[in-house]
């Protein structure tokens, strides 16, 4: 067994944690690969040889005739795709409980959530040493599960990684990123998946990716972001701030970023507006699930399929987004949200004049138990994203790192860098990884 992964162990782990929506049909081929060269793709990334269902039953059976650029580039770099990771349907969720294909279970405690929407990716990154999981973040879908599963999660600048072959949630917000145990692996894989791609025009305006040349000296902690934290997260976050100052010699400054409070509302307006148009194509024709009887009016045919195969959260977001786009509401919601996005970007830029990075906890609490999630109202779930949404709305690169453990569950902190300055995140990842010792659960049951 040369790659450090046995097919039997993989299947056993997946039976327990459900992190994969689909595993490679030829896992024995894995043995051919040298260690640490296996990777997974979130189920909304197209990969030949696999279905691409984006966690949705409406895409059951969709086998894309092409590879997503990020997947193709990982494969060309000699890496083996071992499976497609489980996710909230189309990325709609914070706990990975909205998947059409089972719920992934937290590596630290199976009664708890992996976070979402790249929950399967975070669990795979945590459970499989040397594994690189490609995740996707629209509003925090990398930072959140990275935090809950105790791994590193990098979300690059919007436009850094080609979105060709990504099944869209919200095109102006979607970003492909990396989840792994090891900072060195991020340094290796980020250049592989980055760079202009003519198949995605929004990736073609990026400056070259720099990996070195800047060191983090000051970080800014917005006072608005450290309210409403659970006790455990607050305690661990404060300890981490002290470690940054004492051991890494980084100056920690408290700042005020009042416009962050508008980010969540603006995000949900923009994301659902775009999502409701992206999801219009799923109607039981051409790809994915086949609809019912075609001997009926097409409106009935479409509605029947969509009613039967979209999950509750997808339907909720389609309705929200369609409402925000309607004549009469468009200016009040959609156009206003676009203006807020600009406001948030200026707010970050103002802070970046004096600080290298902005730092907050990644999530206000540790991975919740499934029972707790069931009792949460949809709005409470949306509000849980208030720390991850601003950077996603601004399109700024960010990184979630494990920064402490509360009652055995990992706590994450999230650094945000200026546009295109991923190297600052790589610098802090390297230095933090030396100063802080990560814990990973024993993989064997």
């Amino acid at each position: 067994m040369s790659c450090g992964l046995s097919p039997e162990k993989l299947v056993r782990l997946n039976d327990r944690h459900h992190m994969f929506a689909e595993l490679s049909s030829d896992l024995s081929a894995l043995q051919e690969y040298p260690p640490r060269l296996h990777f997974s793709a979130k189920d909304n990334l197209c990969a030949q040889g696999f279905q691409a269902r984006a966690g949705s039953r409406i895409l059951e059976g969709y086998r894309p005739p092409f590879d997503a650029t990020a997947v193709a580039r990982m494969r060309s770099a000699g890496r083996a795709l071992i499976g497609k990771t489980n996710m909230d349907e189309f990325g709609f969720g914070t706990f990975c409980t909205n998947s059409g294909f089972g719920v992934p279970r937290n590596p630290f405690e199976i009664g708890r959530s992996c976070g979402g929407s790249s929950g399967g990716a975070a669990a795979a990154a945590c459970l499989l040493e040397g594994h690189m999981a490609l995740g996707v973040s629209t509003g925090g879908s990398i930072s959140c599960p990275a935090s809950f599963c105790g791994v590193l999660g990098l979300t690059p600048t919007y436009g850094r990684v080609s979105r060709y072959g990504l099944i869209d949630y919200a095109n102006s917000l979607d970003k492909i990123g990396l989840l792994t145990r090891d900072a060195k692996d991020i340094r290796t894989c980020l250049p592989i998946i980055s760079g202009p791609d003519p198949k995605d025009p929004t990736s073609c305006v990026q400056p070259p990716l720099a990996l070195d040349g800047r060191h983090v000296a000051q970080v800014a902690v917005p006072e608005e972001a450290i309210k409403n934290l659970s006790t455990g997260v607050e305690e661990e976050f404060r300890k981490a701030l002290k470690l940054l100052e004492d051991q890494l010699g980084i100056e920690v400054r408290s700042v005020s970023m009042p416009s962050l409070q508008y980010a969540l509302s603006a995000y949900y307006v923009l994301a659902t507006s775009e999502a409701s148009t992206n999801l219009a194509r799923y109607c039981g024709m051409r790809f994915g699930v086949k609809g019912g009887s075609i001997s009926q009016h097409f409106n009935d045919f479409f509605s029947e399929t969509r009613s039967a195969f979209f999950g509750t959260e997808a339907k909720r977001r389609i309705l929200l987004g369609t409402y925000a786009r309607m004549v009469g509401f468009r200016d009040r919601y959609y156009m206003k949200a676009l203006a807020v996005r600009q406001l948030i970007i200026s707010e970050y830029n103002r802070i970046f004049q004096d600080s290298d990075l902005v730092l907050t906890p990644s999530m206000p609490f540790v991975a919740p138990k499934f029972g707790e999630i069931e009792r949460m109202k949809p709005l409470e779930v949306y509000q849980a994203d208030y720390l991850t949404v601003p950077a996603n709305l601004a399109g700024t690169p960010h990184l979630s790192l494990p920064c402490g453990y509360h009652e055995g569950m990992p706590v994450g902190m999230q650094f945000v860098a200026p546009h295109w300055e991923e190297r600052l995140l790589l610098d802090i990842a390297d230095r933090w990884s030396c100063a802080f010792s990560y814990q990973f659960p024993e993989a064997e049951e």
Partner: protein
Amino acid sequence: MKIGLEVHVQLPTRSKLFCSCPTTAESPNSAICPTCLGFPGSRPILNRRALEMGVAIAQFLQCQIADEVWFSRKTYFYPDLPKNFQITQYDSPVGVNGSCLVGGRSIGIWRVHIEEDPGRIKRVGKSGEEVSLIDYNRSGIPLVEIVTAPDLTSPEEARAFLTELLVELRHIIGTSASDEQSVRVDANLSVGQERVEVKNVQGLRNLERALKFEASRQTKMLEAGMKVIRETRRFDEERKVTHSAREKEFEEDYGYIGEPDLGTFDVGSIARSLKPIETPLRRAQRMAGHYMVDFEKCKQIVLTSMAMADLFEALAERVDPEMAMNWTLGPISSNWNTLLPLLNPPVTLDIVTVVKHVADREITDSEGRRRIGAIAAGECPTDISCAVQDSLLDSIISKYLDENPQVVKDYTTNPRAANSAIGHVMKTAQGKYNSQEVVEAVKKEIEKRKG
């Protein structure tokens, strides 16, 4: 009566608007790819040629052109629309607030934008057992939409406007003449207060028919004291009537948002880089004004061919423009099909020379016609070319003066010395040239040698 048109014309690009699929195909669903089928994970990439064509059209229609444009998603559910949204331009068209002269009247142009075409639905089978087949070859074909103000006042004028617009578009972007059948129009027409929209009328002839039917329907209703209701109607090509579409009881809400995958495009610089082009009808207007000739005749010339207009202008510079017109629409036009492929600068000069000789009464009308017929028949120009004959005359004179140098010397003191040369040339050329012509040519050559 007020009529406003929304005209959709296919842009003659080789590939589609957002993918590299060809715009022509032999069998249904053969020119398709993940992008124009809206497969999850696929993405649009703009065909810049289509944008350039859109800008050229907007510029021709004297529109204001923004520096930057973007695209929008127009969401509605229909089986021929793979993504269930159409990528079009909503709050950022290529051009706005233009105008276009037709028959001396200025027709307002509200906007010009580009968008993708949906697929095509074909209904087959017996009534009651009909099946709908969808061909996505058309999905993603680039279209330009031109929206006029309700400035047209009759169905005839609407047709004339569209006919002329299509002529100009053929020249600007290279559409083919079949656009007269394929052009698709949504027309708004009001006789009284309320307007009615007749949607998706295909072809010039159907447009005029649909508008005539609708105008008379509304007139009759108003005369009978009935109210015209605001609605969308469809034109039945076979029965030549419009009927209520009865599809929507409410105004459709397309929920436009920006298309986030495409970004913005600098059309300002495209507009500045385009050379102004003179379209056929604009040329006809200029020719009519400049040469003081009849506009309709100028139009006839440019509608035949811009090459014929070139020939007319070459003639009008040398002979009286009325005569140039008569010869262009007469002998030249009647030989046009065989003449056109032969046209090049020497042949053009031959034709001009023939007409010039007729104008100068050196040859008769019928000889001129014969010579143009001969040029069109591709006969050797030396047999008929006046240009060549001119040089023949010069060579006879030169040869005589070379052999008799004293003629030039004597001419200084006695101009009659030229007579010997004139006599020799008249005799040698055997009446091919009139005396006035020979006298001028001899004197010119002697003066030159006197230097």
